[in-house]
């Protein structure tokens, strides 16, 4: 049971992460390849606040998410005029920068040694009940995220977001302040990614740079594309499939030494097949361009 609950929690965290990227990638149509950076900023900010200043994880969660949102705003401001592949490269670079900082700023982040002993949200005595508590907590956050995203998307504001994906110039010609909308969406996406990061750190209680590298960004992109860009259900499905899929490999008896590297290969293969055969993803309606 513990194992299932653990998978539930991890899946939930990645659903929040993929929903937050979906807003930028699927609805706004901007190919952001550095989403793990916001995940990292949320995780490291609230962990460091808790470890060094004794800030409660409940408060750290929102401070961490706010830091992520601020960095999202800065990135939005610097890249709003970049088109397609240039935007992808810029955000990819941003992901690398944040990864290098947490890896090399040893004085603060302890670099590759990682941060151990991050406090949990509430410390129950038995592991079992605290797991249940975490499940409920994650479920609540997932639901709040879904409701928030739905409210945004199915509104005139959401229509403007999607008009930028289809034709930014035409949106501008119709009087939409595309720069402002883009920066707002980067902020919102980064905020929720920051929440996911903080939830992750305070659940696992140990973080190191390897959870926030470039592959992590690609994995989230894959979740959004696999499920279907521009659909809420797609992001949920994509996250669930890609988190639970490696566990299936384990169950069918493939040894870890083979499963780990083959996982990457299968992810790569999936991505290629999708782009060639079904660019709108499993549940998707929309394409990027």
């Amino acid at each position: 049971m513990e194992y299932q609950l653990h998978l539930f929690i991890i899946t939930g965290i990645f659903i929040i992460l993929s929903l937050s990227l979906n807003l930028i990638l699927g609805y706004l149509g901007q190919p952001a390849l550095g989403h793990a950076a916001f995940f990292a900023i949320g995780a490291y900010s609230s962990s460091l606040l808790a470890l060094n200043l004794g800030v409660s994880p409940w408060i750290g969660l929102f401070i961490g998410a706010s830091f992520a949102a601020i960095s999202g705003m800065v990135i939005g401001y610097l890249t709003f005029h970049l088109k397609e592949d240039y935007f992808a490269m810029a955000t990819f670079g941003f992901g690398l920068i944040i990864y290098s900082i947490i890896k090399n700023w040893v004085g603060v982040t302890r670099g590759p040694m990682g941060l151990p002993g991050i406090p949990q949200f509430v410390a129950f005595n038995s592991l079992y009940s605290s797991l249940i508590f975490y499940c409920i907590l994650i479920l609540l956050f997932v639901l709040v995220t879904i409701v928030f995203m739905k409210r945004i998307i199915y509104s005139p504001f959401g229509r403007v977001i999607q008009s930028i994906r289809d034709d930014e110039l035409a949106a501008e010609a119709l009087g939409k302040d595309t720069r402002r909308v883009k920066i707002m969406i980067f902020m919102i996406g980064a905020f929720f990614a920051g929440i996911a990061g903080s939830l992750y750190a305070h659940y696992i209680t140990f973080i190191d740079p390897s959870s926030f590298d470039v592959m992590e960004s690609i994995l989230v992109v894959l979740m959004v594309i696999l499920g279907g860009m521009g659909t809420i259900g797609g992001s949920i499905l994509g996250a669930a499939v890609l988190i639970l899929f490696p566990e299936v490999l384990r169950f069918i008896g493939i040894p870890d030494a083979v499963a780990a590297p083959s996982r990457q290969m299968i992810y790569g293969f999936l991505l290629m097949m999708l782009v060639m055969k079904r660019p709108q993803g499993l549940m998707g309606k929309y394409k990027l361009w």
Partner: protein
Amino acid sequence: MPFLILENLSKLFDGNLALDNISLQLEEREIVALIGPNGSGKTTLFNIISGFTKPDQGGIIFKGVKITNLPPNKISRLGITRSFQRIRLFHQLSVLDNMLLATRYKEGEKLSSALFRTRSVQEEEEENIKRSLGYLSFVGLLEKRDVPSENLSFGQRKLLELAMAFASDADLILLDEPTSGVFPETKAKIIENIQKLNEEGKTILFIEHDMELVMRLAKRLIVLDHGKLIADGCPDEIISSENVLDAYFGERKFYA
């Protein structure tokens, strides 16, 4: 005070003068055709009025407001809308969504309105949907309301573009070749709609190569050649004037 004033506009592209000291004025409710050979600067002039290209020199005053260096979205909100030579619609969104994007929202398009749906926000949305459907039925696209605009035929997309111009509440409408490449029946419909727009009080400036249509629609003709304004006035006079014919057909003395 004139509706739109262009003063000494010049634009240089890689050392070529795309626009050379253009000055002209439009009055309210005018319907004016902008003609000239390919590369004469017509679309550049549209881009400058709508804010997509910044002029190197000169200024634009619209309804008494200087708009020269405003971003396109601000210019649009002041009441200038435009179509593009290559149709630009939101191809994955439905026809109705395209229309709603063209309508004006006071508060509905804000993030806060999306999160907290007050009554006035909902009423505004309902009102805009009603208006949009009205314009769609007017151009004959009502039954296509839920179809993604990429599934429309070329002529239907041109009509949708016009319906969006109707819905936008703009006072000045710039149309870049509104009838190029469409069937004669659709063309007739488009012409009818442009006239209707004009009758409703809109000022229209359109680029067109089809001289028959220009003569039918326009009350005034502006001719550009190599970035220079070479004629401005009543269509009948201009069409027979020497320098316009030269611009279009080259110097004719060899053939005379």
